[in-house]
């Protein structure tokens, strides 16, 4: 077949995994809560400066997988991981530089979690505790809010309590707060599930914008959202015999939603699963 001209549309959407440099290299990752296995042998690569969505039915281990990427699972006693997850040449499963890791890998949660302080202080909170210069900090506050597409809405009331913002604004504030410590990666755990459709679309647009500079990994319950925003999609499923989560298919989103390779993926995305 002839390829008469440069590929039309969004060429980045069509790149196969590996074409973009990998940010996380996940290699035969297994995960355990105490004696129960939650994830088994997950291997894939999360491309840099792309949006990667992780989808699958409840209980498939999506969130567990996400929480491996910034070692959030350390909060759970008895949680253990096997295999390796390499970020910038370092295996994050064995690293002891936890604080640095988490600075580098920001996270946004399901429910907006503004700190009970002013908008400005929310963004400046971590930089201050990290001991950065206060002149630099006010610059960072503005920058981060701008990047999170919130500056225009709050620039005239930076000292208002963060809780006075709407749900969608709060979530963007949380994103700005992440950006303030200059992360490379932003993990998002169902960031829109507590928001209404309007606020959801705003966050989605923001994600697309941010993907120019950051690697974004999003876990979502909402298949359509994954389809809308992500460049790559990982589909996970709980193994019915052993009840651990498995990675069924990982592909560019357009391919996964148009031509899934695995029949289980097809069943799930067309709503015929179960």
């Amino acid at each position, binding site marked *: 077949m002839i390829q008469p001209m440069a590929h039309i549309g969004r060429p980045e959407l069509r790149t196969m995994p590996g074409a973009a440099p990998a940010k996380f290299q996940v290699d035969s990752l297994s995960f355990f809560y105490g004696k129960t296995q939650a994830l088994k042998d997950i291997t894939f690569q999360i491309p840099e400066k792309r949006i990667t969505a992780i989808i699958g039915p409840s209980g498939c281990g999506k969130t567990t997988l996400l929480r491996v990427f910034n070692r959030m699972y350390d909060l759970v006693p008895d949680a253990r991981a096997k295999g390796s997850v390499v970020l910038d040449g370092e295996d994050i499963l064995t690293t002891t530089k936890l604080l640095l*890791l988490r600075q580098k890998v920001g996270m946004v*949660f399901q429910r907006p*979690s503004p700190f*009970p302080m002013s908008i400005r202080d929310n963004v400046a*909170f*971590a930089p201050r505790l990290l001991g950065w210069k206060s002149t630099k900090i006010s610059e960072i506050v503005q920058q981060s809010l701008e990047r999170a597409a919130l500056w225009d809405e709050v620039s005239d009331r930076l000292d208002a309590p963060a809780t006075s913002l709407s749900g969608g604004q709060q979530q963007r504030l949380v994103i700005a707060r992440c950006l303030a*410590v200059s992360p490379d990666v932003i993990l998002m755990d169902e960031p829109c599930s507590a928001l209404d459709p309007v606020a959801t679309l705003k966050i989605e647009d923001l994600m697309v914008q941010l993907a120019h500079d950051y690697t974004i990994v999003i876990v979502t319950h909402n298949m359509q959202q994954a389809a809308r925003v992500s460049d790559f999609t990982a589909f996970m499923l709980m193994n019915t015999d052993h009840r651990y989560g498995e990675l069924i298919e990982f592909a560019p989103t357009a391919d996964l939603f148009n031509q899934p390779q695995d029949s289980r993926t097809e069943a799930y995305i067309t709503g015929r699963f179960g």
Partner: protein
Amino acid sequence: MTRNAWRRFSSGTALTVMYALTGLALVPLGLVLWFAASKGLPAVLHPEFFFNSERPTGFPGGGVSNAIVGTGIMVGMASLAAIPVGVLSGIYLAEYGVSRWASWVRLASDVLVGAPSIALGLFAYAVIVVPQQHFSALSASLALAILMLPVVIRTTESAVVLIPRGLRESGLALGLPRWRVSLQLILPAAAPGVITGTLLAVARAAGETAPVLFTGFGNPIFSLDPTQAMASLPLVVFRDALTPYKDLQQVAWGAALVLVVMVLIINLGSRWVLRRQIRLAGQL
């Protein structure tokens, strides 16, 4: 009567009865407040009531200044011990609450809340009064501190737990160390709740009689020395109420009124603070 009519009727009756019982339950409160006020006011209205110390029966102009100061000193010392320990323990329960040890701590504090206060008095007596060979405010403070401790622990825990998990995780996800997140982010957010809890604990300690019976023991003379016996308000009420002397009974009612007013102020005040706290936490 049709079945539905009967159902409506019986429901209405039950509703009425239950509201009536609720009203009935409030009668004692009204009566206590009324009698404390009506019988205590005559005593309280003399200014010397607040400036003079206790006097034996027959000597007019007796007051409770020694008891008020005594209660203040004893509760103050107890707070100094109980509050930091209680708050830190509460934080531990909230932060690491799923561990086995935490559930033991929690059970122990809950049980301690229900422990008979007089037993705490016996304990303090055995630990401090016996070796010292005399009563002391210090021993009373020990008993009161133990009394306060579980209240502070549990209110701190519930105030901190009220702060959504997302806040803590967000803090950690920013790469901040755990102690900073806990003390500089979570605790300030939970502060109103914690303060409320400590105030309630203070109010409870200030109103307790049994633990000070044979620790602080009471002292008719104004004293600031924590190693000696010291007067306290509840003790004044208890002792003087049981005397047959009208003037002492009068002082007892006056002291009771002071206690009641203090408790009401702390309770209603902290309720207001707490409601703000809950509303705030709800927004987080």
